[in-house]
Every structure is written in structure tokens, then in C-alpha cells.
């Protein structure tokens, strides 16, 4: 296969290539596309599965928002009511129990089945080996296992909707004791989490070993693309933070299935009847173990996104990233700090001033590396020759959106304002700003950016811009009013969106506004979905290094990359990751594997 061209087989099936290794014979369909050990295939599998789950999780929320906008009114789409089960929405009116299921599963699915598998499983798997000049991940069979265990976890979660009593309904946080006495769906949630955590652990081992052991010659740590650093730190977070939740999951399963009382306090009375368990457990123990994972988890959500934004900004400003070294130190420090801030989610659990002060302090400290990274990314724009293509628009929007998300986190990280804001819509606004116009926008940037590498074609830029502008407007329409509602004291997880509370009356009107924005946001994804599939087959064909980038996945591979071994010749690295516009060079970019300047 020659560089840049697509081989066209007239008459023959496109998936049969003449063998290019002597002892290699073509594996069948199942080994090539379903049970492949090739990191690129696995990356695509993760990508498709994750995008489907994102769509599903988003749909759950769009349904919830009907109930919030028009509490107690019948859902207008009868076929959807039938699909969701008449028992869940008798006469088309959503039951509170079903609303709770939608809420718990929306969060779970978006975080664990959508964003992380896309950010780490898809982008990480596909891009990291290419960016470090490796033939594959260090443990290809383990990689395959990781994907299918994730798939199993996803199926477990999805199937739970069809159980009697429906899916888990105790929030994505599954707080005890409510979760312990909840319906069977919660057991499936716990089992699903065990699968997902296992998948994640296996994956994180793979990423760390790959990045440390399989870097090409000359690729020192300080020459790594920022995206690889982000994935490296993320993998450590997943490796060390997930196991306590696995332990907690096992304990909650024991409570639910074996009658133990790890999380059940003594004297618990349910519906007027004392629960006949030993008691002596601690609901707080669940919270500690859950948040020990869930706080680093939010950095798992943001770090790969920062990595992608770094790549796209460097490439589209035609300049090196400003402050690469501080950014690397910051991201490592951020990863470390993320392990010791978790109880800022628990300020209202009756903690004393000493322990509260500890967690407030660590939380304030952790905002510093985030600010360093965001500032460095902003400063990287200064003096750049900015190309306003679709990936760049999403990357640029990430900056202020993540800024809003991060800044609104500060009052939550200090105990006194948190007393007022905890468990209100302010929190929902805060974290959605970081994950939705934050991470998700960065992931969109990544999709538009790396699409040519995966398919050899580019997505339509005009449609991309429509997708961007509409999404940007409507996503702000969904989440900005949440701060207003939260400051007014409207609690989260309310089935009627606050309708029965006096203090919520003045801000209730925002519910309809946010719901309409959400539905329009859903419609705004249609150009993206159409563009994505259409471009795969009919997008404009492009060269191997369409964006004129410096990093190895563009500079040293074909497009799409070779099936085995990724590189026609094993690359040697001679320079840093962002040598754009180097004075004295004839070209405005110098790929990492380029020896002398052009």
C-alpha cells in the first residue's frame, strides 16, 4: 500500500488485501472486525458503542425534560410512551419512580458508558499507539478483553430497564441506605459497574505500559504530545481510584443479596417496618468509597478532553503550545491532587471543622493546575495563524465553557457557600458545563480532527459549522439557567422541577426554556450524525497528513493506517511535538520524525 492513496479493488471485495507479510494469512470476518486485537479496530468499536450510549443517555434526558417543563402533563408522542412501557407512564404521565430511573441511568450511562469509553477507549486506543510510534498496545489481547467486558457491562445496564421495578433509581451515586432497599435494577447496576470497572482496570494497565515501554526511539517523555500525557495521567487515575468503588460495589451487593449491613445503620425503619438486618453499618462508608472513585473520575472525564484541545489548538494556530512544560507538570499534579479532595462532595454529612478544612484546602489547591492548563491553552492562541475549521471551533469553545464550569466549582468547594448550593441545580449546571460544552465539545473536536486519519476522508466543514453553532447556542440554553435555579434553592432530582416549592416559583419558568433548548440541542445533532455517516463513504478524500500536523499519527502513517504494524517504517523521533512555524524552516510544520529542517 503506498502512502496516502486508497487501493481500489475493481470487482473484488474491498476487504481482501493482497498479503504483505509472508507468514500472514487473512483472518476471517469475525477476527478482523469483531474479535480483533488491533488497537484501531478496538478503538472504533469503543467509539461506535460509546456514541450509541451517548445518544441513548441523551434521549433519556430529553424525555425527563418533558416532565420538568410540563409536570403532570401527558407525553405527546404515544409511540414513545408505548416503547417505554405504559406502566412507567400511565396515560402518558411519567411516574416519579420512572423519572428517578431516567435520572439515575442518564448519569450512569453518560459518564461510564459514554464519555469515558469515548475519550479513553476510543480516542486513547486509536491515537496513543500511533502518536508514540508503536505497532499496537502493549497487550493486544487484554485490549480485546477490555472492550468486550465494557460491552457486557453496557448490556447489563441497558437490560436493567426491562426488569420488574425497572432500572436503578437511586441516582448515579447510589447512596445507601436507599440503594440497598431499591428494586432489582440496582443489583444490575452494581453488576454492570463491576464489569465496567474491570474493563477500565485492564485498559489502564495497558495504557500505562504502552506509553512507558513502547515509545519510539527519540520520543522522550518531554517530547510526548500533550494528548498522550493526558491519557497517561488518566490511566493512573483509573488504575488507583476505581478499586475502592469495586470493593464498595461488592459490599453493596452483599447488603442487597446476602443480608449484610455494611451500609445499613441500626434501627432503620422502612415504610413503618423496622428492617430485620443486623444493622451497625455506615451509610457514610458508601459515600467515602464512592467519592474516592467518583472524584478522580471527573478528572478522567476532563483530562483527555484537555489533551485533544491541546492537539487541535497547536495544529490550528500553527504554533507550539505555550507553556508545554508547566502544562505537563500541572496535569501530573492535578492527577495526584484528585485523590485527596473527594469529601468536598460530603460537606453536609456532619463533618467537623478540621476535616472540612482539610478538604476545602485541597480542593482550592487543585483549581490551580486546572487554571494553569486553561491559561496556557488561551495564551497559545496569541500570535497564532488561526484556522477556523470545525475542530478548532469546538476546541476554542471548550476554553470559556470549561472556564465557566471550573469557576462555578469554586463556591461548591468551599463549605459555607456549599451549604446553600449542595444538591441544587447549581451543582448540575456546574458539572454539566465541564462535561457537556467542556469535554463533549472537545470530543467532537477530536472526531472532526481524527476522522481523516481513520477513514481517509474529511467530514463536511459547512455541516460541521452548523453543528457547532447550533450546539453552542442550545447547550448554553440548557445549562446556564441551572445556576439561576440553583442559587434560588431549587433542589436536584425533583420529579416536578421544583413546582411545589414556594422558593422555586420565581425561577420555575426556566424549566420550559431549558427543555426546549435541550430538544433543539438534540435536533442540532442531526447534521453531525448525517455528516458522520455520509462522509465515511462520500466525504472528500484527503492525504495522510491533511491537517499538516507534526505528531506521529499524521506524519508517519498512511491514511487510514496500515492494518498491522501501523508504520511502513518504524519512526525515529528527532524533535518535540509542536514544531510549527520554526524560524528558518521553509515549511510551517516540522513532523516529529523529520531529521533535518525542511
Amino acid at each position: 500500500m503506498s502512502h496516502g492513496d486508497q487501493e481500489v479493488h475493481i470487482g473484488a471485495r474491498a476487504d481482501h488485501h493482497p498479503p504483505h507479510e509472508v507468514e500472514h494469512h487473512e483472518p476471517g470476518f469475525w477476527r478482523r472486525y469483531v474479535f480483533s486485537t488491533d488497537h484501531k479496530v478496538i478503538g472504533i468499536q469503543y467509539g461506535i458503542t460509546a456514541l450509541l450510549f451517548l445518544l441513548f443517555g441523551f434521549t433519556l434526558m430529553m424525555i425527563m425534560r418533558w416532565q420538568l417543563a410540563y409536570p403532570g402533563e401527558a407525553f405527546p408522542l404515544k409511540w414513545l410512551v408505548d416503547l417505554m412501557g405504559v406502566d412507567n407512564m400511565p396515560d402518558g404521565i411519567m411516574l416519579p419512580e420512572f423519572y428517578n430511573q431516567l435520572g439515575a441511568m442518564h448519569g450512569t450511562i453518560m459518564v461510564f458508558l459514554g464519555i469515558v469509553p469515548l475519550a479513553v477507549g476510543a480516542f486513547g486506543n486509536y491515537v496513543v499507539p500511533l502518536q508514540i510510534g508503536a505497532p499496537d498496545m502493549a497487550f493486544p489481547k487484554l485490549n480485546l478483553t477490555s472492550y468486550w467486558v465494557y460491552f457486557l457491562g453496557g448490556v447489563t445496564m441497558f437490560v436493567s430497564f426491562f426488569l420488574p421495578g425497572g432500572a436503578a433509581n437511586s441516582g448515579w451515586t447510589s447512596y445507601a441506605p436507599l440503594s440497598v432497599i431499591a428494586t432489582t435494577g440496582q443489583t444490575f447496576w452494581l453488576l454492570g459497574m463491576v464489569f465496567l470497572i474491570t474493563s477500565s482496570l485492564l485498559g489502564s494497565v495497558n495504557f500505562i505500559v504502552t506509553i512507558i515501554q513502547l515509545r519510539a526511539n527519540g520520543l522522550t517523555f518531554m517530547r510526548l504530545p500533550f494528548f498522550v500525557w493526558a491519557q497517561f495521567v488518566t490511566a493512573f487515575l483509573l488504575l488507583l481510584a476505581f478499586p475502592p468503588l469495586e470493593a464498595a460495589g461488592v459490599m453493596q451487593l452483599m447488603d442487597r443479596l446476602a443480608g449484610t449491613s455494611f451500609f445499613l445503620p441500626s434501627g432503620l425503619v422502612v415504610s413503618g417496618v423496622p428492617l430485620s438486618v443486623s444493622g451497625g453499618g455506615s451509610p457514610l462508608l458508601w459515600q467515602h468509597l464512592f467519592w474516592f472513585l467518583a472524584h478522580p473520575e471527573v478528572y478522567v472525564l476532563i483530562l483527555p478532553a484537555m489533551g485533544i484541545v491541546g492537539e487541535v489548538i497547536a495544529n490550528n494556530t500553527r504554533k507550539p503550545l505555550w507553556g508545554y512544560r508547566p502544562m505537563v507538570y500541572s496535569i501530573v499534579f492535578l492527577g495526584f491532587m484528585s485523590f485527596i479532595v473527594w469529601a468536598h462532595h460530603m460537606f453536609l454529612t456532619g463533618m467537623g471543622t478540621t476535616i472540612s478544612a482539610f478538604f476545602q484546602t485541597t480542593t482550592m489547591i487543585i483549581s490551580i493546575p486546572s487554571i494553569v492548563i486553561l491559561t496556557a491553552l488561551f495564551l497559545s492562541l496569541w500570535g497564532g495563524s488561526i484556522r477556523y475549521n470545525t475542530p478548532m471551533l469546538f476546541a476554542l469553545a471548550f476554553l470559556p465553557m470549561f472556564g465557566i464550569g471550573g469557576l462555578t466549582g469554586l463556591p461548591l468547594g468551599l463549605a459555607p457557600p456549599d451549604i446553600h448550593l449542595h444538591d441544587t441545580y447549581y451543582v448540575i449546571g456546574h458539572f454539566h458545563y465541564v462535561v457537556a460544552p467542556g469535554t463533549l465539545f472537545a470530543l467532537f473536536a477530536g472526531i472532526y480532527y481524527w476522522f481523516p486519519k481513520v477513514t481517509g476522508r474529511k467530514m463536511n466543514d459547512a455541516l460541521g459549522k452548523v453543528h457547532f453553532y447550533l450546539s453552542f447556542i442550545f447547550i448554553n440554553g440548557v445549562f446556564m439557567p441551572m445556576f439561576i435555579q440553583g442559587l434560588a434553592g431549587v433542589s436536584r432530582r425533583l420529579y416536578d422541577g421544583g413546582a411545589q416549592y414556594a422558593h422555586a416559583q420565581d425561577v420555575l419558568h426556566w424549566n420550559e426554556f431549558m427543555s426546549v433548548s435541550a430538544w433543539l440541542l438534540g435536533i442540532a445533532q442531526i447534521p453531525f450524525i448525517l455528516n458522520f455517516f455520509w462522509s465515511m463513504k462520500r466525504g472528500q478524500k484527503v492525504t495522510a497528513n491533511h491537517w499538516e500536523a507534526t505528531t506521529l499519527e499524521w506524519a508517519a502513517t498512511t491514511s487510514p493506517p496500515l492494518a498491522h504494524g501501523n508504520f511502513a517504517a518504524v519512526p525515529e523521533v528527532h524533535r518535540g511535538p509542536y514544531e510549527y512555524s520554526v524560524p528558518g524552516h521553509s515549511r510551517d510544520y516540522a513532523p516529529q520524525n523529520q531529521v533535518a529542517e525542511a
Partner: protein
Amino acid sequence: MDSHGAEDIKKQVRGYIMVFVALMALTIVTVAISYLHLDVAAAVTVALVVATIKASLVASYFMHLISEKKLIYATLMLTALFFVGLMFLPVSHMLDPIQN
């Protein structure tokens, strides 16, 4: 992998036997002490000290940690830090409740 000649391995094997004997002795010690029914603080301290010594022997000699590479040490040090956090912080929350 570190180059191990046959002589080095035989020396290591002798080491393994010695460690095994030490571990057996320490096991007897820790069980014997438990029969003394010391108060909780003393019992916990002794038990954990003995267990740590045993664990260090297993880790250093059976797991070859004593001659392992920097990268492994670094990973373990990092893990140890978070382990300490996980052990102390939740219980310290319990021990420092809100004052009325």
C-alpha cells in the same frame, strides 16, 4: 530481565528457604502473642508490626523487590501514599464530627 547465572539463582534459593523459616517463626510469634490477650491498642500494634515484617520479607525476596527497578518503586510509593489516604481519611471524618 537481570542476568542471573546459575550460581546467583542457587544463592537466591538459599535465601528463599531462610525467608520461609523466618516467616514460619513470625507466624508462631504472632499467634502466640494473641493468646496474651493484650489490650486493643497494643494488640493491634504488635500484630501490624509483625505482619509488616512478614510482608516485607515476601515482597523483598519472593517478589524480588529488593533488586527491582526504580519505576516499580515509584509506582509502589505512589500507591502507598493513596493507600494511606484511603486508610486514614474516612475514619478521621468519623472521628471529627460536627460539634454542637
